[in-house]
């Protein structure tokens, strides 16, 4: 490997020991402190050429900080970074980019009003006559790239018209086209359908064969087990271990991530709560587009899981129940009384709370404080003569911070300073603060760490035990199985199937296999329902 050019003024120095040359990346002894809090303490990460390396850890474990340091966004307080055996002596995004590091973000960096091809070659467009942009060459090169990786995207398609999955793939192709030696993917599959994930994995395997070092960050353990060669696990800003995945079991990984006090998702609390009277009832309910003709009961103390593929109408069902979209035909009853909702405030008054799918766009005002966010749905209750009582507000916020164990510096800290899992807990607190009878959760654990996931699943069971009717929408079979009493499967806007938890969790299996088998049965059911259409 040739030494990568660094910025002027920084002199690359060859590593003296030969071992570091085997690694595409060698980060050693990395320590980073933010205002007295140690985000990283003596952390290491070594990634070989031609390997897919999983970086694992809970929210707040320090993954993002480590990656930011690798990308040059932040400088470490101490520690060394070697790329291809060459010490990185300057910390800037420019230096990292020149060293061959490319990163694909959770938040998309594509420009929606440009085409796929224009985005891929943005700011380095092929030039033609008189230095003008050669659109045809741009398009042809993009088409070649897409074909290389068997991605069926038209280079002339506007990014704005693409599905989330297509955008993600375009973004990946853009990164690859820059001939990066190190590719960092942060939760790349969260927006992808199952077949797109397969496509992504094919691309990654091809890149691995070409010698690219890939760092893969994901909370989805199944994917890690499928694709990664080795894994490095961080916990609370400290390095735990690096090991080949062949030597790690799922249980071992989870216990390393969550540490001693964590609880396994597989340990489902036995016995379903005694279900009481029907709290939420839908009769042949249809909304605009989806859902279509849905009839469903949720009883007091019951958790009803909603499974289905992306686009099956699960979130539309949640929005309908919460009054975001109107009920066009059919009926909706809460505690036996028909309700006609036109906006979320009416749903809240009717005793319904929604934990929306996307916490950043629908759940939170991220530039505001923890306290402002938590108080927003219940301002009237906290106010007298429409002036908000500071002490009542503080009491409410502190109670929820303690109850949900939200990790925050103070109640007045900006939401931006919280990790994803803790942000999600604030969204939950907002819903719970309205003291709902019906709790609708749409993907409540998407993109958060396994520790917070377990806590949230436990909380869902607790809420059911406390007499609420819970509707849980999730794409993760393990979560549905761990939390639900009953699971309905949606396909194309309809309710296509329903199973009780006892039907898919068999007591014959040994405890370790039980969860796996239940997941397989649920997956099978989802597939079958879609095949029937």
């Amino acid at each position: 490997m040739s030494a990568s050019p660094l910025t002027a003024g920084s002199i690359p120095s060859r590593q003296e020991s030969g071992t570091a040359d085997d690694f595409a990346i060698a980060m050693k002894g990395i320590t980073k402190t933010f205002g007295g809090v140690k985000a990283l303490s003596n952390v290491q990460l070594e990634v070989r050429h031609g390997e897919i390396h999983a970086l694992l850890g809970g929210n707040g474990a320090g993954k993002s900080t480590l990656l930011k340091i690798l990308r040059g966004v932040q400088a470490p307080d101490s520690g060394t970074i070697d790329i291809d055996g060459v010490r990185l002596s300057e910390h800037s995004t420019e230096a990292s980019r020149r060293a061959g590091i490319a990163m694909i973000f959770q938040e998309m960096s594509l420009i929606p009003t440009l085409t796929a091809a224009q985005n891929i070659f943005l700011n380095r467009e092929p030039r033609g006559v008189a230095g003008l942009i050669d659109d045809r060459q741009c398009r042809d090169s993009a088409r070649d790239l897409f074909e290389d990786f068997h991605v069926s995207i038209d280079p002339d398609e506007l990014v704005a018209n693409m599905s989330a999955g297509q955008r993600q793939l375009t973004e990946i192709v853009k990164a690859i086209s820059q001939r990066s030696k190190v590719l960092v993917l942060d939760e790349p599959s969260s927006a992808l359908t199952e077949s797109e994930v397969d496509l992504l994995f094919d691309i990654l395997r091809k890149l691995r064969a070409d010698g690219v070092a890939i760092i893969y960050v994901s909370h989805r353990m199944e994917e890690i087990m499928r694709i990664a060669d080795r894994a490095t696990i961080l916990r609370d800003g400290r390095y735990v271990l690096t090991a080949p995945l062949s030597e790690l079991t799922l249980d071992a990984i989870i216990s390393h991530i969550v540490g001693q006090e964590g609880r396994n998702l597989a340990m489902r609390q036995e016995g379903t709560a005694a279900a009481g009277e029907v709290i939420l009832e839908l009769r042949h309910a249809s909304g605009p587009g989806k859902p279509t003709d849905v009839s469903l009961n949720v009883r007091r103390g019951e958790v009803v899981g909603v499974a289905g593929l992306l686009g099956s109408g699960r979130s539309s069902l949640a929005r309908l129940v919460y009054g975001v979209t109107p009920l066009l035909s059919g009926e909706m009853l809460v505690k036996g009384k028909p309700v006609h909702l036109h906006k979320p405030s009416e749903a809240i008054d009717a005793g319904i709370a929604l934990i929306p799918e996307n916490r950043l766009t629908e759940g939170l005002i991220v530039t505001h404080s923890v306290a402002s966010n938590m108080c927003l749905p219940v301002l009237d209750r906290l106010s007298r003569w429409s002036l908000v009582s500071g002490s009542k507000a503080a009491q409410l916020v502190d109670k929820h911070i303690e109850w949900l164990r939200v990790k925050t510096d103070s109640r007045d800290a900006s939401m931006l300073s919280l990790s994803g899992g803790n942000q999600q807990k604030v969204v939950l607190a907002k819903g719970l603060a309205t003291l709902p009878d019906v709790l609708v959760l749409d993907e409540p654990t998407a993109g958060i760490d396994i520790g917070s996931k377990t806590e949230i699943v436990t909380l869902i069971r607790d809420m059911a035990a406390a007499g609420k009717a819970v509707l849980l929408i999730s794409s993760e079979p393990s979560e549905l199985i761990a939390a639900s009493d009953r699971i309905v499967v949606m396909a194309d806007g309809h309710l296509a199937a329903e199973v009780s938890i006892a039907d898919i969790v068999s007591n014959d299996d040994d405890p370790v296999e039980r969860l796996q088998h239940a997941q397989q049965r649920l997956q099978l059911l989802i597939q079958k329902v879609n095949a029937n259409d």
Partner: protein
Amino acid sequence: MTEISSSSVPMMTYLLRSWRRGIIYIGFVAIFIVFSITLSDQGFLDPDNLLNIIRQTAMIALMAVTMTFVLAAGEIDLSVGAVAGFASVVTALVIHDYGFLAGMLAGLASGVLIGLINGLLTTRVGIPSFLATLATMGIATGTAMWISQTAAIPILNRAYSFVFGGGNIGSIPVLFIWVLVIGIAGHIGLKKSSFGRRVLATGGNETAAHYSGVDTLKIKLSVLLMSSTMAALAGMLYAGRLQSGRYQFGEGDEMSVIAAAVLGGTSLMGGTGSIIGSIVGALMIGLINNGLILFGLDYSQQLIARGGIIILAVALSQRSPRR
């Protein structure tokens, strides 16, 4: 090695952040001191001159209070200056025929009417407030010119002139009392009331606010209504102070009002707002205007100098463009 001494970095960002929040107050004091020294011979520090600054700035400050609510909700109101002129004409015409009370009510009603139009266009028809208020700005000015036949309408009612802008209680201008009362009410309304919280939430993230049970359309309608009504009051104060109604009153004020709010730390992106900042921002603009006049600059030079100072102040008070 990549040893980097650390602790200085958070300290720097902390200082930088508080500097940006405080720049308007520091800038205000700095400009005041500079003018006090350099313009002492021209009578800058005369009580009369200082009271004059307050009189000249009061209308901008009042409109900046409600503009802060509008900007905090993520909207904008370009029609305030035109509404002020329109309301001054309406008030003067009605006072002439029907007296004090009717004139006052008619003036306020003209603001409520245009505020409702702005609000309904924005929330029901879905026209962005930038365009809706740009349109009503023209309509308000045109109507004012039409009904006044572009002439000044004199106001001979003394009580009106005293209450609305012209009077003094002891040596304190009535205008100062207006600003004080409305400023305090605005500050409490934005920071302490549930309405203010909902305004900030709507501007911070409209979808999330809607999902949290905030009636975001009602909030937007309310702030645009408040802004126009306050603009009408400002127009009535112009009318009282200058004892006439004229369509030119308030001409171009929208720019000073928005500049005052932004100087005071309110973001055009919504979700933040400071009433005290906006009032100090308005006073600062008045201060600069007054100083430039005392320096003997002619109107063209004043415009250039004022533009430059506002750019400088806003640039210093804004967050850096990247992160």
